[in-house]
């Protein structure tokens, strides 16, 4: 769980280091949800969003409900085996993207007025310029960027789990009430 918190906070920095135009800031939460279940994943999301504030992403503290949603939905997807194949991981990531865009849009709109210290603020301005109201503009921006981001995050977690040795995965699978993380060969 500690590593997943650190991974959440630092994944954005890794993405910018590799010059990838994505957030990837929920990879730790998704990984924790798949390996350890919903409760540790929710704690991971809350802790990571709080820790991100003094480490350069101050607005993250207000997006804790989004992190909790990602933890719950990812855990549910893991239970039905969505991470066992890359294409189901991508499809479920797109669904999560729509859900998280819907949850984050009111926060971004009513707390921040649609401006959140991210490069995607440009998209909000473009949608507003096209005549959409602010809430809809923020939601459309989330729909555009979150679906891609979450689909890639899910495929990344799926491929990381596929690469983990079974010795390590058994540590998680041996416990009751944990999601199915077995991979198809």
């Amino acid at each position, binding site marked *: *769980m*500690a*590593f997943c*918190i*650190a*991974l959440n*906070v*630092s994944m954005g*920095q*890794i993405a910018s*280091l*590799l*010059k*990838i135009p994505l957030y990837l800031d929920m*990879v730790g939460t998704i*990984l924790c949800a798949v390996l350890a279940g919903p409760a540790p994943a929710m*704690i991971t999301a809350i*802790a*990571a969003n*709080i*820790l991100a*504030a*003094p*480490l*350069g992403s*101050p*607005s993250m*503290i207000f997006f804790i409900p989004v992190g909790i949603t990602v933890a719950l939905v990812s855990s549910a997807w893991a239970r039905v085996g969505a991470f066992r194949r890359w294409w189901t991981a991508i499809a479920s990531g797109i669904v999560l993207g729509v859900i998280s865009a819907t949850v984050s849009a009111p926060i971004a709109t*009513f*707390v*921040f*007025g*649609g*401006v*959140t*210290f991210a490069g995607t*603020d*440009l998209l909000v*301005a*473009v949608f*507003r*310029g*096209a*005549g959409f109201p602010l809430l809809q503009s923020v939601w459309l921006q989330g729909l555009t960027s979150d679906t891609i981001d979450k689909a*890639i995050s899910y495929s*990344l977690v799926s*491929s*990381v789990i596929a*690469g*983990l040795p079974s010795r*390590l995965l058994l540590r998680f699978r041996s416990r009751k009430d944990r999601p199915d993380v077995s991979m198809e060969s």
Partner: protein
Amino acid sequence: MIREPRTAVVLIVAAAPLMLSPLGLAILIFIAWQLPFTPFFRPNSAQRKSAWDRFQRSSLAFVVVAVVINGTFGAGERMFQSPVGQLSIDGLEFGLQTSLRLVVITTAAILYILPLSSLDLANRLRSWRLPAGIPIALLLALQILEHLPGDVRRIQDAQTSRGIMIRGAFLPTLRGLRMLVSPLIFRSLSASVDRAVGFQLRRLYLSNFPGTSLPIALRPAPGLLSLAMTVIVWSTFLFGILVWMGIAPYVI
């Protein structure tokens, strides 16, 4: 009295737009009242100091970018012909208002969080009767965070020496990300176990494992001053949100 002048400057700059309304002036006085406490708003580690400096630098750039973007793409009836093209006055105002709102909210949040030491945070969480694993996970995460950038660089160099290019075009980089994250997970998991043993040895994690009887040296809490700071910062923060959500009156 103010030994941290940059903190004061940021507070005043961030609160300056509030002066445009009578209520804003009241808020400014309210914020200014906490300036004598700014010596206590000191980041307590080099990493947090660097985060604070980064935030200060990025805030101004962020406000400028938000104003320009909204002025260029924003819709509205009032338009202004600038040398670089037509700008929307409504867009400019919207960009200024929202970006300054974010700067003020985040400044309040950051000022509250930065001076907290991780050990104080962990002990406070434990005093709330939260499971012992939560504070320990937070402390571990902070330690891992400190070492993670170095680990990433080492793994990247190692993979490059094996012929796996992690940097480059978008799709190969995405594929290479797995080669970076998987070893990072292994490395961090083993490091977490070592560090957790270290915490147990300091009796930070009360579990069935044997610990030592060595007491932990805790910093004394500032008591009344800490309470006053907490009340001031959080009431400013919450009042600001109420103003900007339109629940409290605000005129610009």
